[in-house]
């Protein structure tokens, strides 16, 4: 009962955390942030983009399901966009550090607005 009451708050916090983390990763393309450790970016790519897709697609599932799909979808998103950059000329103008967090925010916000 108590947890159910807290759920909207948890969802708001989750959204804020993901958006903030995504913006931080996007900021790493700026020359002023060159001194940021890669340890900031690596966990993001391992989990967060896929987590957003897993939230969107998984209507039910255990914690293991969510972790599995989060990692898988993250890998899929990264590898697909990397591949598209190698195939489409000129697409490297926008770095992956911008595209992936941008798409992640869009998916997360969409999922949030859907009220899942």
């Amino acid at each position, binding site marked *: 009962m108590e947890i159910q009451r807290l759920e909207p708050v948890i969802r708001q916090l989750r959204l804020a955390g993901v958006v903030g983390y995504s913006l931080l990763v996007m900021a790493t393309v700026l020359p002023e942030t060159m001194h940021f450790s890669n340890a900031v970016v690596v966990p993001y790519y391992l989990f967060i983009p896929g987590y957003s897709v897993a939230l969107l697609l998984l209507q039910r*599932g255990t914690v293991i399901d969510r972790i599995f799909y989060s990692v898988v*979808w993250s890998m*899929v998103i990264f*590898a*697909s966009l*990397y*591949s598209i950059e*190698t*195939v489409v000329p000129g697409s490297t103008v926008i770095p992956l550090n911008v595209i992936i967090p941008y798409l992640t925010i869009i998916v997360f916000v969409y999922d949030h607005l859907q009220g899942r």
Partner: protein
Amino acid sequence: MAALILMLPSIPQGRGQDPTYPSAQVLVTVHESVAYDLYGSSVSQAYGSVNGTVSSIGSSTTFHIISNIRPYSANLTYVANGKTTSEPEVPSSVTAQVATYPLTLPAHTTSFRFSISGSTTGVELLWRYLGSVPIIEVTGLGVPTNYTTHIVIPSGTILSQEYGPNGLSLPLSYKASPSGESGYSSFLVQPDVSLVVLQSDLFLPASIGVTCVALVIIALAALGLFGQGRQILQRLRRSLLNFVSTLHLSPLRRLRPGFRFRNLFQPRKLLALFLLCALLMASAAAIGGPDPRLKAYVVADPAEATIIQKNLQQVVGNTPIVVTPAQDYSDFAVMSSVGQFELAVFSSYPPAGVGEIQGFVVGGLGNVPVIVVDNSTNSALAKLIETTYPGKFLQVQNASALTSAEQHELASLLAASSRTNLFGLNLSVRDFNALVALEAVLSILLVFIGFCYLGSLASESSSQTDLTHLVSVLGAGIFVFVFSEALYVTVSSLLALPLSLHAVISGAHDLTAVGLLGFGGGSTPRLAAGFLGVLVGVVGARGSPPIKKSDLAFVLGIGLLLLANPFSIGQFVFQGLVLFLPLGNIAFGAAYVSSLSLKGFIYGVGSALGAGVTPTYLMSAGKMLFFAGLVPLAYLRKMGRTTMVIALLLVALFVGDGGVRIGEMTPDKTVIAIVPGLVIGFAFVFLILGLASIEKHVRGDWRSKG
């Protein structure tokens, strides 16, 4: 062919027509034997000539003419010191795709004419005709060259599309020219046209008519006017069933009471059949192999290879099988690694081809026990072989005329390295060929059963969670592919004959086991077996998702309608169909370019995930496609009715096409393809689930019933 096309230079501009300047005029004429049929091939007459003015030659000059015209005859006439000389038969070295003519003009030659007459092939498919346009290339002459190409086609035929090197679409640019033959029209086309699509002038109105009729049928169906038709069909069905029941089939039923063919399509039973088939193949190969005939890989001119074969016959006592680069060289590593060759012979070979052959063959010579090199071999190549494989190297004067001492030494070396049957059996060539034919059939059956197992596992209803179901399908898919490929390697090694090969030319009989059945490398039957295996497995499994006939008819009907369409969309679908048919590596147009983009995407994902970093773990787009197909296969039950049919057909095509690479027998490539393949599969799933989402909104319900 591809190499030849890549070599085709841009057309030189300027003074080629002026006879006072050194120049060469290349004229190609192809007389297309056009036929319109559902499927078939035909041979067209082709003629080519090279007229050269070479007034500046002060010393003898050697150059090459390369052409993909399959030659009947080739002759050379030249004028030197005011005297005309003719060579009625110019020797050539012919490979699978091209013939190379080395020509030497003596000093003070002022002009020459080289003529070739021969044939080129065309393909008939779905009442269109794909005609190849021959190419003649002059290399090493050092003068500007002009190219002119004429196509002669029967009147009433439309030149519908033109494609250039690498299958790229070219704008229609032909001009009518006098044919001089009644009932035929002649067209002057751009010299970089390598493929033309011809169709009857009736094709356009006929396809528009078919499309209109189909649209009317769809409209009538939408209005629900087929109810009476269905009643008639049901009455016919009942009559047919009544007739069948009057046939006295009950004794057969009594033989196996309770037997139902559909009961076979359970994953457990199919897995057992798959393993049984594998055991049968391995056992038969162990009992019957290795091939009793000596097999030699001979890198020499084809004419000389025949003489070398006769020489080897004197050494071993029976007729050895000689394989030359003209038959296959890109698969040499695989052929040699399964012990196909006991001997490799190197002799004179056209200098233009030595580099490419060297790249493919020398690395695999470590798998060949004896290497014979004669004095006419390219010196750099001979030196490389001698330094790389000193323990196997046997230098001879002339491989076409071995001395008795050389024959004796070669015989003793071959005797020392010969393989014997595990059970001491000595099968005759006839018996061995029968065994090989059996293995070939089983190798295709293995793919069918294995893929059928995957289909049934993916579609049977179970109480597994989604994740467990996904993991079990992926695990089973990886097992089926890796196990099948391992079995192919085992059986091929036991037989000393590859069950199949990836790049072998179609129609080759001596190179592979499936070749004995007339399938060349066996890609097409494996593709068909894999495609059908998945379909049968999915549809036949107990508790499989219901695939309604109406959905299947709808999807297939749309496909056929698009195929019949006479405009760009129809051309695209036609080009896509051509990609998957055994038409001798014909690939062209926007569909081909799209397939290259898909291939580029697959390679991109592969390189992001560690594939192709070193030559050991090379990427294979086909293998990755197989593993990619497994993921949507596992999600079939999650899709709406129509999406499921589309996904099923796509998955069967992907998995079937990727499954062809089982016969490639390159386990390293398989290992590196698994992870990228699965990742690509999830990307496919994302797209297919998007399509399913659209269907959900259109239909108003999400999941397929059942």
